[in-house]
């Protein structure tokens, strides 16, 4: 089987869950925001492939 139902668009190709332009603590907060969103998506009912954004 090929396919995915739940997609969260990351920050960038080279840094999906970060941003090297930010200071470290801010970057970690950003990463946390992404993961909290990911956990929300995992608790969301989907039928077709859904693409979410932060």
């Amino acid at each position, binding site marked *: *089987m*090929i*396919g995915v*139902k*739940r997609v969260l668009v*990351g920050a960038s*190709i*080279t*840094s*999906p*869950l*970060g941003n*090297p332009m930010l200071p470290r603590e801010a*970057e*970690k907060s950003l*990463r*946390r925001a*992404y*993961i909290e969103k*990911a*956990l929300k998506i*995992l*608790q*969301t*009912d*989907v*039928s*077709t492939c859904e693409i979410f954004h932060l």
Partner: protein
Amino acid sequence: MSDKQWRVVHYINQFFGQFGGEDQADMGFVLKREPVGPGLTLAKELGDDFEIVTTLICGDNYFARDPEERSREAHALLKEIDPDLLIAGPAFAAGRYGVACGAMCKRAVEEMGIPGITGMFEENPGVALYCEETFICETGDSVRDMLPSLKRITRLAVQLLKGGENPRLVCRENLPSPQEFEYYSRGVIRNEYTPESTAERAVRLLLAKIKGEHYVSEIVPERMESYQAPAPIEDLDQCVIALVSDGGLAPKGNPDGFSGRGNLVWSTYEVESFFPEDEADQEYEIVHTGYFPDQVIEDPYRLVPIDVLRELKAEGVIAGIHPAFFSTSGNATVAKRCAHIGEEMAEEMRKYEIDAVILTST
């Protein structure tokens, strides 16, 4: 002594070899030095330039029990004959016979370097198994199609052995078109000369498609199997999350031999030691030529968010993090292999209490 140009071996089963029906399906190989049964008609169709120097007869059950081994056995019998072509069947809809014919042709191509041609009905399992390895002509579903099938096989045989370069192909290879020669596509793609420019041709096909008119595409994208989305997780605070990534993150030295491109393997790394909590100097490598790796090397959490997950676990938001991180490199790996890697990872995950997966990709 033969003055014929092309020496042919014909493979047939116990029934067409005139030994008997199902009662003889267990018989082993028998070699005859002349055409037998449908081979007589085949010899007539092939004409003066070809000679069926050997007919190899075998029981369908005997062969089907282990096609790879049996075709090896057959090859040993045929080695000293040194044929130019192997023709098997045609098998029509007979499954065991079709598999035997396919295996015989594949062995001829691989071990003897000669063309193999057989004939089968489209639903014969031999078609799916062997159509990429050898030439399988289209046939009807029963022996009533014998003569037209033998004619198709002959036409292809003549083309392959006498045809010379194919001027339609840019590479000039002697590869007859499946449509023209009525055989199942071998999934081979070659560049062709066409009277129209590519732009004209593409626009013409697109217009036909838009208008709902008939058009033929040489490349038909595989239809993806639809499946049901996994149900959402409930009780997040009871959930164990596993992390996966295809960003090619590996210990320095790449001990599991990931490839930077077309990678086929995956591994797990123990979270505690691979991402030490005190962030002690751990040496990483990115084995992935599809993205600039420095940002992830500088801070692997940008790819694998262990730091955040540890926080969430400490706060009781999630129950736990699976102790193994699943790593692979996904850069120009064939989709089918990617799907297998996913299945293999899932099989490993099923051994543990894992409620959800976060997979990060670059």
